[in-house]
């Protein structure tokens, strides 16, 4: 069986500044892959590169075995590969509801927008309360919920999620991980970047540790030991 996503010796960065140095990793179809690592390691950059938002200088990205290097972001999205960015990436001048509707923009998702919106409002009742508010005036946590809800509207097959728990109250973080667990059970391929390592490891099938733009450790989720992982973070600091 082919993997949902293969990243092969990927190099990418911002203009003159290269961030990713030969990153390789895979995400198996229907499994949850967690990427952890210290700040500035390049996790967000990796997700952005997969989506075509950051130019790739070398290496390859494959979705279901097919090369997607140089593909346009919107084509990648149309193939069911979706990224949920952290909460700053909402549409600040549009209403909450219009933000969610934008999630259903890919043609394949338009038919189901009503059902999906109901589902999102169900997950985050706060959004339902605020459906007509201009998204730019939402609180930080509300915006984060909106970004997640909007991503779910896209009915992803492969979902890249960047720090979903950022800025959320503990109760909501509980809810997020419950939702992630449910999506995983539904068979979605999830690639999760998360600083809340202990929570993330609980749902991880596979774990990658990134440091300074490289993958330094890849292991099965159940084989990872939290303390050893954190020790490796330190190793980076020392080095």
């Amino acid at each position: 069986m082919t993997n949902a996503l293969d990243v092969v010796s990927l190099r990418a960065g911002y203009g003159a500044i290269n961030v990713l140095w030969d990153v390789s990793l895979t995400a198996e179809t229907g499994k949850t892959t967690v990427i952890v690592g210290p700040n500035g390691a390049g996790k967000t950059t990796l997700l952005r590169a997969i989506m075509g938002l950051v130019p790739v200088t070398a290496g390859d990205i494959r979705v279901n075995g097919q090369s997607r290097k140089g593909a346009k972001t919107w084509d990648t999205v149309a193939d069911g590969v979706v990224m949920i960015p952290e909460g700053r990436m909402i549409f600040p001048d549009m209403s909450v509801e219009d933000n969610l509707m934008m999630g259903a923009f890919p043609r394949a998702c338009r038919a189901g927008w009503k059902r999906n919106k109901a589902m999102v409002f169900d997950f985050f009742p706060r959004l339902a309360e605020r459906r007509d508010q201009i998204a730019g005036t939402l609180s930080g946590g509300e915006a984060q919920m909106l970004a997640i809800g909007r991503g779910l509207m896209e009915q992803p097959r492969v979902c890249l999620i960047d720090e979903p728990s950022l800025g959320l109250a503990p109760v909501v973080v509980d809810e997020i991980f419950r939702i992630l667990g449910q999506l995983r059970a539904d068979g979605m391929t999830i690639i999760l970047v998360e600083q809340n390592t202990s929570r993330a490891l609980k749902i991880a099938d596979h774990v990658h540790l990134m440091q300074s733009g490289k993958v330094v450790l890849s292991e099965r989720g159940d084989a990872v030991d939290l303390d050893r992982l954190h020790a490796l973070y330190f190793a980076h600091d020392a080095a």
Partner: protein
Amino acid sequence: MLTLEGVHVNFGGVQALKSASFAVAEGESIGLVGPNGAGKTTLFNVISGVVRPSGGRLDFRGQSLLKLPEWKRARLGIGRSFQIPRPLGHCTVRENLIVAQRFGARTNDPQRIDEILDILNLRDKADSDATTELALTEHKALEVGKALATNPSLLLLDEVLAGLETTSKRAFMERLGAVRDRYKLAMVIIEHDIPTIAALCPRVLVLNFGQIIADGAPDAVFRDPEVIRSYTGETTL
């Protein structure tokens, strides 16, 4: 040093703050927590002058702040960070700090700027463009830096630790604590990470639907059933 009494804020139909009252003593550290949308950021906005309350009293060292513009409050010693980082446009990281120091503290002290860069681990990025070349956590560090550069006596930090991985967070907290002690800062810090709050702040305020529903020592507050129900959930100290 700071007293709020019966502060109200309305956004159209939304009551973001309802009669919020509390006081911060000189040198005190307070953790401010509460569910998303409870009004924490709004509270900071009121104190720093970004949002005008529709009612209430707001005093800083015996002087009412209500009529003062943002920049005067900053010069009085109120420094704040933004939850969504707002680096100064077209400026490098160092220039961000220089502006804050020249105008907020009205001094010119390059040494202290270097000191701040070190504390925040921004030395490598000092000459990077602050709007386009930073990762999220670096942006947050810069937020703290701008506030520190104004030589504040009260520091309002809005989720500056969010997104930091555990080790860096611990290191950052320690450095923040050290700065606080060295400059005898009072500090109000918004954070959703309960252990961090508990470690850093001897007093915690819980805001819910614009009202303060709990105020006290961390272990007492986080055992309050109301707080558990609305905010902490399964997470415990």
